[in-house]
């Protein structure tokens, strides 16, 4: 179970399961939402009138939780501390006029007072969010939480109001409420006002920290917080980039305030921390993996930075262009004015020389135009003090020149002396032109240099933005390719999973196994259709409750059912038991209930899963087997009885044989003897011979009877297996034989330590027979050698008796063990031919086997095994 089974594919209507679950969850043995657990076992009847439970988790978007570990707390605390420190330092710098604290280098823009205050507040918000642990009393916890929220809110407000100031062009009262800044500070639009991007960043970050510090936030809020962090970081990086290149320079949008370096660094730190907090694994379900998301964010950040920097550069370039155009326009106006003055001068000169009154009108016109242009240019350069100064100087000169010309004309009209005025006029004119010329040259030089600079900036910013865009795009393309690969892999995995699921489903269905899965966290249950079918419902039941399942169990098995579940629930363990159920159609079935709890890392139960398998077929088979076994036992008993009866008959037979057959033999032998004794002369030689043969025959028959009886006794006797010392047994048999015939010299070689597991009596008979045979068949040798030992054969000991006597022809070996079969005549060696048959029977009864090897006149070796010990 577990991850392998994707229940969603097999689940039925989730909503209708709520009834089952709810009752199941209210089961006193299951832990309720607060984690408390009741131990009373009390089955709850389903209440059809109860409303379906309203579950905020099911209705709204799932809530996520930021995980606060010691590492994240440290990081957030560090960021907050940094923000407080930088803001505090700036404030100290402001209060005590320390430039180094306000703006790191004097030619850089300073961090404004409001910015410093907002940083302190934001830093406090971060610190309060990162406060380790929760306070013991809820009151202090609440205070902490609300303090954090309040700080964040205030910081955001500062930023927001500043933005509104920019938007609606309000005055600088808000910017200077704490401390006033002089009007001509570097890079400041309005004294004391923070940069628009700083204000925006404050708004973003205050929102972000409020979301992050909350115990539970919706997913969209966490994503927005991450985006805010990303934007703040991008603004900060863009500002730092601006500071880092002298060409791009540090300039704000549309000439507005520039973000100070300390602010940029602080925003960077705070933005990164916010992204880190939201980006912890498991906080927000995000389809991409960790490194992929970081790459994605980096790509996005690069693009943002590039965009911001480029837009700023563009704004700057446009601004510069406008300024330059303005200056050129002013220059043109001045040029026009000077040209008009020169025209006036020329006209006055012409009038003086020619006395033609037609020159007076252009002169007046020129004067008028010059004066108009002066007024116009005054309006044009209304806001530039330096240009106003220039204009004023020009105006003085122009007015002086025009006055001189007029005076000249008047003088000429009135006939006064014009020599001084002419010279004066000349001097003024040349001065005017010289001054203007030098200024014009300087101005043109300036303008071209500024234009060149702007072009440089544009080019570099174009270059940087191209590179940056390309870089960002490259990152995105890489991410996309990576996602594609991952997606392809994932598709394969999904496909494999689907196939595996269908196989599992097939396996479960063919096994008639129903599966159910109860999620205690969100109170949903899934089950397969087979579950219902096992219980005899072809169409799906609306909802199953625990009590309903129990009702299907036959009453006799309910204790088993209850006990199994109770034990499992008490130990949060698993259950596995069999019981009978009564299906909907009344039929009885055996089912196997198994399943268990799934615990989370803290040991709390989060899921309950179970299998219900229809094992009726197996149970029926088991019953059959039991019955067959009983029948078999019965048959075995009968057969044993038969065999025992047969055995008893055989015993009786053997008994009667031993007794009844012998008596007539005795008579034959006895009366033959009497004949021999009493009527020897009467019967004659032939008669005596016949009588001898009669006697010999009857004795032989007696021997045969004895041997047969022994043989049958071997078969009938009960075998008692014990540990038998074969060495000692062989030695004692050898000793007996040696005693019975002391005249013979025989070398007995008996191996030491031969132990066997068998019936000692029967084994003695074996040794007596084998050693006796060896004894018998070596009787012709002067010095015989009889050996008894053991070799290893297939892991078992094989005992052998070897002699160097007469041996036998191996061609007749097949007759060796037949009853009464002999390979020698009675003249050569006596014997009935039953000894080896007896030995074979005994060895067989022990589960072993015997074989013989020999050659004529070279002795024989009989080796036997005794089978595995019983």
């Amino acid at each position, binding site marked *: 179970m577990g991850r392998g089974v994707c229940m969603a594919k097999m689940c039925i209507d989730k909503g209708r399961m709520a009834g089952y679950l709810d009752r199941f969850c209210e089961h006193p043995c299951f832990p309720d939402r607060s984690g408390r657990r009741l131990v009373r076992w009390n089955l709850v009847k389903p209440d059809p009138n109860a409303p379906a439970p309203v579950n905020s988790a099911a209705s709204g978007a799932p809530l996520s939780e930021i995980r606060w570990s010691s590492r994240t707390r440290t990081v957030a605390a560090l960021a907050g501390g940094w923000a407080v420190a930088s803001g505090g330092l700036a404030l100290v710098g402001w209060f005590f006029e320390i430039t180094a604290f306000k703006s790191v280098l004097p030619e850089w823009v300073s961090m404004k007072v409001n910015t410093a205050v907002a940083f302190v507040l934001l830093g406090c918000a971060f610190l309060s969010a990162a406060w380790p642990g929760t306070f013991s009393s809820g009151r202090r916890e609440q205070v902490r939480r609300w303090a954090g929220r309040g700080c964040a809110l205030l910081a955001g407000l500062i930023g927001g109001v500043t933005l509104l100031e920019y938007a609606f062009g309000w005055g600088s009262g808000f910017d200077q409420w704490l401390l006033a800044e002089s009007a001509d500070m570097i890079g400041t639009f309005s004294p004391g006002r923070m940069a628009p991007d700083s204000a925006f960043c404050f708004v973003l970050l205050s929102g972000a920290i409020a979301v992050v510090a909350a115990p539970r936030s919706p997913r969209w809020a966490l994503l927005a917080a991450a985006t805010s962090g990303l934007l703040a970081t991008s603004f900060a990086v863009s500002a730092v980039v601006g500071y880092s290149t002298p060409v791009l320079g540090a300039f704000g949008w549309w000439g507005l305030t520039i973000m100070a370096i300390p602010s940029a660094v602080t925003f960077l730190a705070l933005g990164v921390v916010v992204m880190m907090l939201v980006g912890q694994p498991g906080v927000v379900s995000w389809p991409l993996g960790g490194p992929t998301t970081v790459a994605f964010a980096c790509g996005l950040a690069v693009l943002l930075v590039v965009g911001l920097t480029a837009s700023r550069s563009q704004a700057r370039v446009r601004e510069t262009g406008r300024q330059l155009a303005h200056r050129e326009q002013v220059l043109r106006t001045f040029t026009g004015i000077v040209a008009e003055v020169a025209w006036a001068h020329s006209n006055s000169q012409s009038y003086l020389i020619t006395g033609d009154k037609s020159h007076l009108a252009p002169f007046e016109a020129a004067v008028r135009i010059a004066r108009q242009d002066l007024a116009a240019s005054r309006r044009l350069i209304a806001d530039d003090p330096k240009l106003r100064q220039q204009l004023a100087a020009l105006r003085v000169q122009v007015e002086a020149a025009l006055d001189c010309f007029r005076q000249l004309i008047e003088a000429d009209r009135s006939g006064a002396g014009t020599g001084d005025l002419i010279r004066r006029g000349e001097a003024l004119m040349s001065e005017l032109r010289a001054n203007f010329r030098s200024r014009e040259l300087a101005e043109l030089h300036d303008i071209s240099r500024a234009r060149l600079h702007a072009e440089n900036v544009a080019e570099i910013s174009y270059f940087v933005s191209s590179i940056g865009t390309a870089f960002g795009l490259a990152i995105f393309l890489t991410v996309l390719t990576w996602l594609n690969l991952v997606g392809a892999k994932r598709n394969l995995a999904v496909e494999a999973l689907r196939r595996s699921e269908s196989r599992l489903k097939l396996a479960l269905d063919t096994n008639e196994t129903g599966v159910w899965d109860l999620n205690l966290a969100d109170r949903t249950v899934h089950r397969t259709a087979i579950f219902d079918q096992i219980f005899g419902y072809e169409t799906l039941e609306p909802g199953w409750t625990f009590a309903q399942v129990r009702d299907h169990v036959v009453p006799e098995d309910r204790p088993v059912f209850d006990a199994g579940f109770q034990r499992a629930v008490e130990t949060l363990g698993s259950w596995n038991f069999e019981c009978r159920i009564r299906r909907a159609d009344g039929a009885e079935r055996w089912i196997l209930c198994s399943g268990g709890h799934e615990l989370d890392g803290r040991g709390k139960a989060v899921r309950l899963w179970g299998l219900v398998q229809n094992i009726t077929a197996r149970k029926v088979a088991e019953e059959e087997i039991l019955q067959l076994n009983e029948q078999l036992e019965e048959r075995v008993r009968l057969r044993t009885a038969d065999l025992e009866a047969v055995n008893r008959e055989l015993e009786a037979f053997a008994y009667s044989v031993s007794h*009844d057959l*012998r*008596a007539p033999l005795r*008579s034959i032998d*006895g009366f033959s*003897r*009497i004949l021999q004794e009493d009527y020897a002369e009467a019967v004659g030689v032939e008669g005596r011979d016949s009588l001898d043969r009669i*006697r010999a025959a009857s004795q032989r*028959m007696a021997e045969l009877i004895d041997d047969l009886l022994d043989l049958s006794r071997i078969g009938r006797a009960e075998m008692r297996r014990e540990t038998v010392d074969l060495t000692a047994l062989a030695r004692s048999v050898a000793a007996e034989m040696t005693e019975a015939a002391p005249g013979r010299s025989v070398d007995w070689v008996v191996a030491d330590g031969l132990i066997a597991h068998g019936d000692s009596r029967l084994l003695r008979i074996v040794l007596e027979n084998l050693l006796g045979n060896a004894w018998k068949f070596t009787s012709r040798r002067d010095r015989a050698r009889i050996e008894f030992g053991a070799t290893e054969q297939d892991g078992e000991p094989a005992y052998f008796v070897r002699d160097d006597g007469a041996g036998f022809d191996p061609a007749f070996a097949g007759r060796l063990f037949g009853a009464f079969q002999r390979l020698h005549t009675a003249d050569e060696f006596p014997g009935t031919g039953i000894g080896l048959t007896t030995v074979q029977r005994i060895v067989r009864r022990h589960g072993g086997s015997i074989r013989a090897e020999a050659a004529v006149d070279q002795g024989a070796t009989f080796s036997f095994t005794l089978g595995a010990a019983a």
Partner: protein
Amino acid sequence: MNPYILLVEDNPDDVKLTLRAMAKNNLSNQIEVVRDGIEALDFLFATGAHAGRDATHLPIVMFLDLKLPKLDGLGVLRRIRADRRTALLPVVILTSSREEQDIVASYQLGANSYVRKPVDFDQFVEAARQLSLYWMVVNEPPIPKRGAP
């Protein structure tokens, strides 16, 4: 009265051979023969066919065959041992069987000796001689010999 041996044997051949064996050992006039178990009991307790006998004159030893008609040897033995008068009477089971169960049962019921009749006649004679010698001469009977001084 003289000491005598009681032979309980149903096979006439065996009887003849046994008597001949005893004759060879000069004991022929000291053997009484009965043919079956009931007759044996009658003889011993002086009832039935042998009602006129002196019941107090019991044999020195009884050679008892196991296979007897009417009442078999073990039954006779049981009855003998059950009766106070004959409880101590030495009994030699003289039979062809060498079955272990016979031997054990005989001894359990109080037989004093168990001898297997050999088929070979010479051996049979020798066995008879030894038995007679032992039981008549060597062994001390529990019932005193009548006629001894």
